[in-house]
């Protein structure tokens, strides 16, 4: 979908719906965990929807993203299907990774999502390499590397930013600063400024209100265009907040985060509520229409959950598949 006209209502509505989808997906995923229907752990994106949607709506399908352990939002925002995502979270064969990746490794290759990563900062090299490929192969694709404030402590980030800057790679490093790295406040783990880190490499760095989808989107569109002209890399620090704990089991979190703070962000800075209010105020959609959309999406989501719950698990033979890729050009039909 072309992103040329920023004032296109349809696109605003799409952004709104994408954010709602993410919220609905996460609510359902949380429920699946709480009702012990989902194996393993997952990490909720609720509250950060504007970041993923604002950025991904400024990208083409073939532009690449790399994601984090908190990756459902990125995956959906880049065009993934709810059903297939729930299937992956439940380890079903129809999932995006045939059930073999799960929440933390979910990837959607057809939509340019190179995958969530369970290693903090683990995908930064991949994003940078994808940008190198794009430049070498002349594809005009750009890459957005999602990561959190915690990942800025990883050495890999500096190594790849250094090289990205050296080689002028078309990559946008998008730091979602949700004020907490796992269970610790960001002030306690980060010295100095986040943006200053990028600037040390000569990388242009911007700070954006992560709860304002339009601001995020507008910023991304500018940077993406400049990237395609070879002016990259760029760095965005997006100020946002996660409503849930670090992972779905992190329920009692008062010891590191006050309920008041949570309430403040939820009630006053919710991206969906605020954008909905803006849409209504601009006359783009009525409250009733928005509510109707919400029910629609809720139904869509619960249908998707139902579908995934009833979907088949992979057959046992799957366990040995895909350790190696086939190399047909050497006559290896199977690895």
């Amino acid at each position, binding site marked *: 979908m072309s992103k040329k006209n920023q004032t296109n209502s349809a696109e605003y509505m799409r952004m709104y719906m994408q954010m709602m989808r993410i919220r609905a997906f996460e609510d359902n995923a949380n429920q699946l965990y709480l009702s012990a229907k989902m194996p393993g752990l997952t990490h909720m994106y609720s509250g950060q929807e504007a970041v993923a949607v604002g950025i991904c709506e400024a990208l083409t399908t073939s532009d690449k993203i790399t994601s984090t352990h908190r990756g459902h939002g990125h995956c959906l925002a880049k065009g993934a299907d709810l059903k297939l995502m729930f299937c992956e979270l439940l380890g079903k064969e129809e999932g995006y990774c045939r059930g073999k990746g799960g929440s933390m490794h979910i*990837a959607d*290759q057809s939509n340019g999502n190179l995958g969530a990563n369970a290693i903090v900062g683990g995908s930064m090299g991949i994003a940078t390499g994808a940008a190198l490929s794009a430049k070498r192969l002349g594809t005009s694709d750009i890459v957005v590397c999602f990561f959190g404030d915690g990942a800025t402590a990883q050495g890999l980030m500096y190594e790849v930013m*250094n090289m990205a800057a050296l080689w002028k790679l078309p990559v946008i490093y998008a730091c979602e600063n949700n004020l907490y790295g796992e269970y610790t406040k960001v002030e306690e783990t980060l010295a100095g400024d986040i943006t200053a880190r990028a600037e040390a490499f000569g990388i242009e760095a911007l700070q954006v209100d992560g709860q304002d989808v339009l601001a995020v989107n507008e910023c991304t569109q500018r940077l993406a265009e400049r990237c395609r002209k070879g002016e990259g890399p760029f760095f965005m620090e997006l100020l946002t907040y996660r409503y849930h704990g670090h992972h779905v089991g992190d329920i009692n979190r008062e010891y590191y985060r006050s309920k008041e703070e949570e309430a403040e962000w939820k009630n006053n800075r919710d991206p969906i509520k605020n954008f909905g209010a803006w849409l209504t105020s601009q006359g783009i959609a009525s409250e009733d229409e928005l509510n109707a959309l919400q029910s629609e999406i809720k139904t869509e989501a619960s249908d998707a959950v139902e579908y995934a719950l009833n979907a088949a698990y992979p057959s046992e033979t799957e366990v040995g598949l895909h350790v190696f890729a086939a190399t047909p050009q050497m006559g290896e039909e199977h690895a």
Partner: protein
Amino acid sequence: MREITLSKAVNEAIAEEMRRDETIFLLGEDVAEAGTPFKILSGLVEEFGTDRIVDTPIAEPGFMGIAVGAAMTGSRPIVDLMFGDFLFLIMDQLCNQAAKTHYMSGGKLNVPLVLRTNLGATRRSAAQHSQSLHALVAHIPGLKVALPSSAYEAKGLLKTAIRDNNPVVIFEDKLMYNDKAPVPEEEFLIPFGVANIKRVGTDITLIATSSMVQVAEQAADILAGQDISAEVIDPRTIVPLDEETLIASVKKTSRAIVIDEGHQSYGITGEIASRLTEKAFYHLDAPVMRMGAMDVPVPFSPVLEDLTVPTPAGVAEMARKLCSGELIHAA
């Protein structure tokens, strides 16, 4: 047939493949003008330019990660890791990312990259520049591991590695870069998973990798003088491993020694010896012995360093004992 050095053989393989396929590029430290400290890649940057022969900062995790990302998105990178010892720096990108991406994505994402690095002690480079760490990567599902034993294997295996759609780690013996061997001028590839029987014998099987293949051959010469006929086999790749050839040989000779330059404990020798014992058990007339590098960090002093690796005399003596029925350990 012409004879070229291992260094030249590697150079040729890379050049030929890069001419053939534009998506291939190479990155690493001092690879362009310097052609690496071992001077293996001299001339390549002149032919292919700095876009395709890319000097990196000293940031192993960084450029390994970049290679993974590039491989996932249409390029075919060759990573030059200057010393095998630096594997430890890149393990997350190699083993958590590259090795697992194809599997974790349900087969949808490929990582066709080659990591070229080296092994081998006795260069007086001390503990952090002398390790043979191929066992570490062989242990990780999703990585293929190749061990060329001469210039011939170096060229043939590297070309196959570059064309493989999987992450392949290929270890060259840094002591052998200037050793010559007959290498055909015409194009040839050596398939993975096919062992090479270098010498046919009847009394004992010597399975040796990389730098240890010539040690085994020299041991076989010593044994021939003692009327013991040793069979020498070079597996060439340990992932995939040509078990069939190894087991058939041991069934024939009923005795085996596995010789490798990795540490003797918890390494290649143990894995291969274990498979032989499992699958040729009823044909064994002697215990399958492992001979690896001593379980010590590589010492600097030449006198000490030379003690830590298997030697032809040592291998021959072990073989003699096994053939005579002499007990290596009390029964």
